[in-house]
């Protein structure tokens, strides 16, 4: 098991502008962690630091042992091949044999309800289908941790519902979920705990009910009232 994840005095600076400031915390296995915060708070950057796409300016990101992690982005990047080909691609990169990859891909496509379009070209699918396919590609890897960066930001309500139920199913299969969202409703529906970021700092951390009912920090209060920009 790769959790808990420990962030120690994590800083990330771009062009003299601090994006993440001296952040320390421990993210444990289990709950679905939702990172909230206003635009520019550093939510996406924090996830990319944790996932290893960015390197900290100082401080550290320490995993407890090795394990597979995956990430689903706001705008899914589909390879120019079939839907199932995209899933198989991820598995092959992870060192899974072709035969095994094919059967796992078929299985996971069924789980996200894309079996009917498995052979269609991925890049001509609708936005909702593409995001479900991105989830399937990540899920097929059976990751210990799955990062999701505003996975429903560009989707209509129906597609959003599909994506949320898939995220729950992935969590139910034993994967730790760490995600960002702009939708407070989504945070309520999906989240177990909230990490609230403001201006690059971790301002508040609380179970989801507590956070929405009795936010402690003035920034969180303001954010929930929609007062911060």
């Amino acid at each position: 098991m790769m959790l808990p994840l420990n962030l120690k005095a994590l800083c990330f600076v771009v062009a003299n502008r601090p994006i993440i400031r001296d952040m320390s915390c421990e993210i444990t296995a289990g709950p679905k962690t939702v990172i909230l915060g206003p635009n520019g708070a550093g939510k996406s950057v924090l996830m990319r630091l944790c996932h290893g796409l960015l390197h900290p300016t100082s401080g550290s990101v320490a995993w407890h042992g090795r394990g597979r992690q995956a990430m689903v982005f706001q705008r899914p990047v589909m390879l120019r091949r079939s839907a199932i080909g995209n899933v198989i691609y991820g598995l092959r990169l992870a060192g899974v044999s072709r035969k095994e990859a094919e059967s796992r891909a078929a299985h996971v496509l069924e789980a996200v309800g894309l079996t009917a379009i498995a052979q269609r070209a991925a890049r001509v699918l609708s936005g909702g289908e593409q995001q479900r396919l991105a989830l399937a590609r990540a899920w097929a890897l059976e990751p210990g941790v799955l990062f999701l960066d505003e996975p429903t930001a560009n989707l209509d309500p129906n597609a959003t519902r599909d994506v949320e139920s898939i995220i729950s199913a992935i969590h139910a299969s034993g994967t730790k979920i760490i995600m960002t969202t702009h939708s407070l409703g989504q945070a309520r529906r999906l989240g177990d705990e909230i990490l609230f970021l403001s201006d690059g700092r971790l301002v508040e951390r609380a179970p989801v009910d507590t956070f929405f009912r009795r936010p402690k920090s003035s920034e969180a209060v303001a954010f929930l009232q929609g007062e911060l920009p």
Partner: protein
Amino acid sequence: MSDISAALAEALRLIGGMDAQLAQIVLLSVRVSLVAVTIAALVALPLGACLAIARFPGRQALVAILNALMGLPPVVVGLLIYLLLSRAGPLGEFGLLFTPTAMILAQAVLVTPIIAALSRQVIEDAWIEYEEQLRSLNAGTVAAARTLLWDARFALMTVVLAGFGRAAAEVGAVMIVGGNIDGVTRVMTTTIALETSKGDLPLALGLGMVLVAIIIGVNLLANVVKLTAQKRHG
């Protein structure tokens, strides 16, 4: 004006009455350039992709050099290959001078920087879109390069076609290393040069039109394939 209409008539006559000798010249041209472009692509596409993705000191300088090499003067390449393949040169014992193989080598050398530099640009643009996703999936440089080469295949096809056009239209290098030997290394461009020096301008221009028609034909064909595939794959 009469010269050009005479050339047009000559071109139509050449295409219509395609005799064995002309057919041989056309086929040799196409064969030499196709093989040369294939070789160049095998070298240049991976090179371009790696240059687009890998980050190492001196990369910018390498890119600049590659871009500059796109303008390699064919005559210089021809001379270089000539000196290499000449009996007195380092590769002389293979006896490749004045053979189609020598012309293929010269064209491949000419076209490799073009394909490498243009594909570097194409792949670098694609990499902006794909980078996070591929790194998230743990793709190393080589795997990412392979993925992007495949994913950018439609744009790269255009790049390779540009290389083909350059190879097929080139005369300076193949004249030197091929020797324009009748029936052995005489291709369309060297024939055009020969007919020009014999003062048969309509025939030369007519042959030129045939050459352009071939290059346009190859491009049209490739475009149809590309558009059909693109519609399917997005």
